[in-house]
């Protein structure tokens, strides 16, 4: 009698769950943290989809892609959210993603025609400094290298901004990238494994500048009322990071996945981004950007290597970086 | 009866052969030069030293394959006969149950054994808090409770003074006689052997001889024993 009841109970529970369709979205950890966009996005989407949105978090963008590659076609993911344009080349090559089929109007500094991935936010890498301590920030890599200004950077092998800087120098300097790294070597205090360590050390005064985003000062202005942080505008331009999402070809909920991607570019998602992810939304929400968020780097000062090109130069750029900095 | 049937012990170049029998209830001294293998012989009987060849029998039953705790014997070492973190009563109680799961009547027996060895007042003390003689008595009390028919004493009282040692040996002999135990006692001191053991096993030259009357052996020692005794 009792086993039967339990079995019946389980069946009922399974049916109850089956009635609410589930959308599984793989993303990076900080997206789903209490201070990230995740909680608000989940509430807003579930209110309109009549579904259960489940986030699965895996480290950062690179760890996310690694997990996906480990799982292959058997992955539970319906949507992957949080890859960037330095990873989309490799992600596309897995053959796991399906075309999104959308042609939305985007507020991006570059044109967008990727059939597999849709952007949800973007930002430019920049060196952030404290204007009360550094009166005369450098205006270019060359000026930085010529100065005795100290910087904290991240390791491209373990960190997204670190890889971004690698691409930034490559895009700005091309064949002279190796020489630029050699010139920068004596400005670099240390290379940290992730963004958090470097940014934390910068706030403790360990270096004059830290590699971060042009939108970083906005956090201090808006959340802390602190006007002292700014970024150094570089004459050669700033490298663009675009964060994207894509639908898995093997998803068992294709309509929900499509609905989520469409929702991702609506206000319910986009309005949350500036003050949680501290990036520029891919579609500026109806209410505009928050007061004090600042203006983005103009399109003409945007440096960007498309995914195929980024993938092609990556290994050589890493070797240049390593040779120049390995003392 | 304890029988060592063509036993051979080999350890790192050391060899000892024994082919002897000890009748039930006998009190036997084991003497011989230092390093001749007295402790090794007891260790082999107790199951701590592997036997290369031969059989060890108790009442005709081969006990060579039994674990030390399962053999029909109790052994007292030169030292470390008590656990320092347990009280004397607990140490003695281990003789009744190796897991100290004692019933009311077990506890009464422990109290009785402690009384018999004059330790009633010290039951709650730990070994570090009592004298060497008292530690020896506690070990004897445990021996008493274990009720194994064969006792192997590897000079457990060597560290005690002559008077105290004599007292211990007497106590031991008394309890052995009461319980009908067979005792093998290693000794350095011929006086101990004379006092305690009517018969003696001589261990010398790689051999453990069959027991002989102690008085006769000491009166007319073979050369190896004579050298050892300084005669």
């Amino acid at each position, binding site marked *: 009698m009792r086993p039967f009841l339990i079995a019946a109970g389980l069946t009922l529970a399974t049916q109850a769950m089956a009635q609410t369709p589930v959308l599984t979205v793989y993303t990076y950890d900080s997206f789903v943290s209490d201070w*990230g966009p995740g909680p608000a996005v989940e509430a807003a989407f579930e209110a309109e989809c009549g579904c259960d949105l489940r986030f*699965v978090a895996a480290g950062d963008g690179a760890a996310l892609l690694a997990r996906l590659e480990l799982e292959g076609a058997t992955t539970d993911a319906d949507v992957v959210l949080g890859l960037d344009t330095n990873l989309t080349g490799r992600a596309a090559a897995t053959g796991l993603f399906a075309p999104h089929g959308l042609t939305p109007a985007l507020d991006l500094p570059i044109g967008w025609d990727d059939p597999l991935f849709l952007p949800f936010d973007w930002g430019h890498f920049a060196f952030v400094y404290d204007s009360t301590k550094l009166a005369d920030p450098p205006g270019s890599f060359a000026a930085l290298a010529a100065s005795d200004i100290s910087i904290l950077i991240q390791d491209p092998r*373990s960190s997204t901004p670190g890889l971004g800087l690698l691409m930034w120098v490559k895009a700005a300097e091309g064949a002279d990238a190796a020489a630029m790294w050699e010139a920068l070597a004596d400005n670099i205090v240390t*290379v940290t494994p992730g963004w958090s360590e470097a940014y934390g*050390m910068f706030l403790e005064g360990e270096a004059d500048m830290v590699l971060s985003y042009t939108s970083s000062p906005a956090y201090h202005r808006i959340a802390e009322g602190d006007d002292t942080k700014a970024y150094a505008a570089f004459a050669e331009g700033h490298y663009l990071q675009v964060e994207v999402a894509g639908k898995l070809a093997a998803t068992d909920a294709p309509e929900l996945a499509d609905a989520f991607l469409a929702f991702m570019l609506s206000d319910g998602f986009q309005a949350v981004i500036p003050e949680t992810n501290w990036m520029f939304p891919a579609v500026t929400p109806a209410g505009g950007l928050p007061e004090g968020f600042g203006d983005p780097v103009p399109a003409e000062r945007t440096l960007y290597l498309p995914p195929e090109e980024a993938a092609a130069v990556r290994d050589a750029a890493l070797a240049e970086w390593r040779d120049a900095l390995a003392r | 009866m304890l029988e060592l049937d063509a036993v051979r012990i080999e350890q790192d170049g050391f060899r000892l052969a024994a082919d002897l029998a000890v009748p039930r209830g006998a009190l036997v001294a084991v003497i011989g030069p230092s390093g001749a293998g007295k402790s090794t012989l007891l260790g082999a009987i107790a199951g701590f030293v592997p036997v290369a060849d031969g059989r060890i029998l108790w009442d005709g039953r081969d006990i060579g394959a039994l674990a030390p705790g399962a053999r029909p014997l109790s052994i007292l070492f030169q030292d470390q006969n008590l656990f320092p*973190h347990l009280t004397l009563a607990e140490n003695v109680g*281990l003789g009744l149950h190796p897991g100290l799961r004692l019933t009311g009547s077990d506890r009464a027996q422990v109290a009785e054994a402690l009384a018999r060895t004059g330790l009633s007042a010290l039951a709650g003390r730990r070994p570090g808090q009592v004298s060497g003689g008292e530690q020896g008595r506690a070990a004897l009390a445990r021996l008493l409770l274990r009720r194994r028919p064969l006792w192997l004493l590897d000079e457990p009282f060597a560290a005690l003074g002559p008077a105290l040692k004599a007292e211990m040996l007497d106590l031991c002999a008394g309890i052995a006689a009461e319980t009908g135990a067979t005792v093998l006692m290693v000794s350095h001191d011929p006086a101990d052997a004379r006092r305690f053991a009517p018969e003696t096993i001589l261990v010398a030259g790689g051999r453990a001889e069959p027991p002989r009357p102690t008085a006769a052996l000491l009166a007319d020692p073979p050369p190896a024993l004579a050298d050892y005794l300084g005669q």
Partner: protein
Amino acid sequence: MARRAGTLNLAAGAAAAGVGLLTLVPLAAVAWRAGGLPAPGPADWAVLRFTLWQAVLSATLSAGLAVPVARALARRRFAGRGLIITLLGAPFLLPVIVAVLGLVAIFGRAGLMNAGLSALGLPTVSVYGLGGVVLAHVFLNLPLATRLILQGWLSIPSERFRLAESLGMGPAEVRRFLEAPMLAAVMPGAWLAIFLVCLTSFAVALVLGGGPGATTLEVAIYQAFRFEFDLGRAAALALMQAALCLAAVTVAGRAASRPGPGAGLDRAGARVPAGGIWRRAVDTLAIGLATAFLLAPLAAVVVSGLPNVAGLPPAVWAAAGRSLAMALAATGLALALALPLALAAARAEGRGTGWGAIAMLPLAVSPMVVGTGLFLLLRGLAPPAVLALPVTVAVNAAMALPFAFHALLPAARALTADYGRLADSLGMAGLARLRLLTLPRLRRPLGFSAGIAAAFAMGDLGVVALFGDPDRATLPLQLYRLMGAYRMEAAAGAAVLLMALTLGLFWIFDRGGRADA
């Protein structure tokens, strides 16, 4: 003899199998998935050289410097000694990121030390580079070495010191006849443990290494996995790491298999003789310097974080509770693995390096590769998010095993040597032996081991990042999340909370050990 060893070997065998499942099996799973292992290239050999060099340097310095500190703590009795012994353990038990930020606050470019130097008109010093890596490793591991060596000192029965005193032995003779043999038995194990910790160093090497010149094997594994997604290379590098570890275990294990100091009767009273004024001065200096070196960075962490503790969001407190529960579970598991292995190693004296090598395995294999391998192995069995917590507990327990094992081994050896035959002769076996003999006799190192295991488990190692259970974050993960969300002040508060909980757990478990330490 064979009988009793049977149950023990069964338990030790089960523990060994458990360790294998958490280390070598995942490694094999990654290699299998990769379809083979590429041969290491010249760059890999350079990484290997740096890894070895910094680990040798760090272990030698940490173990060497720990001797005077441990001796001073063994000799001196003063108010607050117990507190200092506990606090000295703190750096080792801290999450690396917290420790590194504390170090930077003292020794960094803008740190107190350089502020002091420039105030005196002296040139400032940069920590970044090999020096920084070694400084950080000494900071993190000096406490472990001190504790292991202090345990060695305390394991010399007071009877021996009394005997030495009665023989009119001076400090030089005591050193030669009592302390040198003890050190010879204890030091290889302490050195080895630190060497292995430094071998798999990751965050310290990256933050304080100053750049890619300070690339350790673990960093290279990270690169292979994340940057190149070359599982074969990651597995090959991890295998290299494991081979290094096993070689070190064999060498150090041979050096360490010496007899212990023998049994005493647990008498209270005279311990290590105190010596004269000169010795007193040396000891005061050793304790003072070690305390300043180890506690200043911690003080920096506390000063910057304490004001933010009260205002921490509820999610952080919830994570703290979760981490506590996981730490307790991991502690039980770690002891269940360590005790049978230590007893088996003690019993198999001389031939015991096999058990020792197994106990050291968790330090030898790359956390990154273990995490990946476990993910590959387990994802077919249950949804990874469901497994995140149990796997974290198991992996943390395994990571604590080498330290628990090493803390237990000397005492297990002494136990076997002194009371093994007595217990055997009384037929004490199985649980009764555990309850009446093993647990009470090993109370001190067991408490210490439990403390270390609990503290380890509080500092999440991120091995399970791939499993991703977003709704049940641990405290260290919340700390990272706060940092990642620009909330550095709240993160500093969480760091203080984490430190307090870690030390609290360690203190509670270790109390048994400190009762007569």
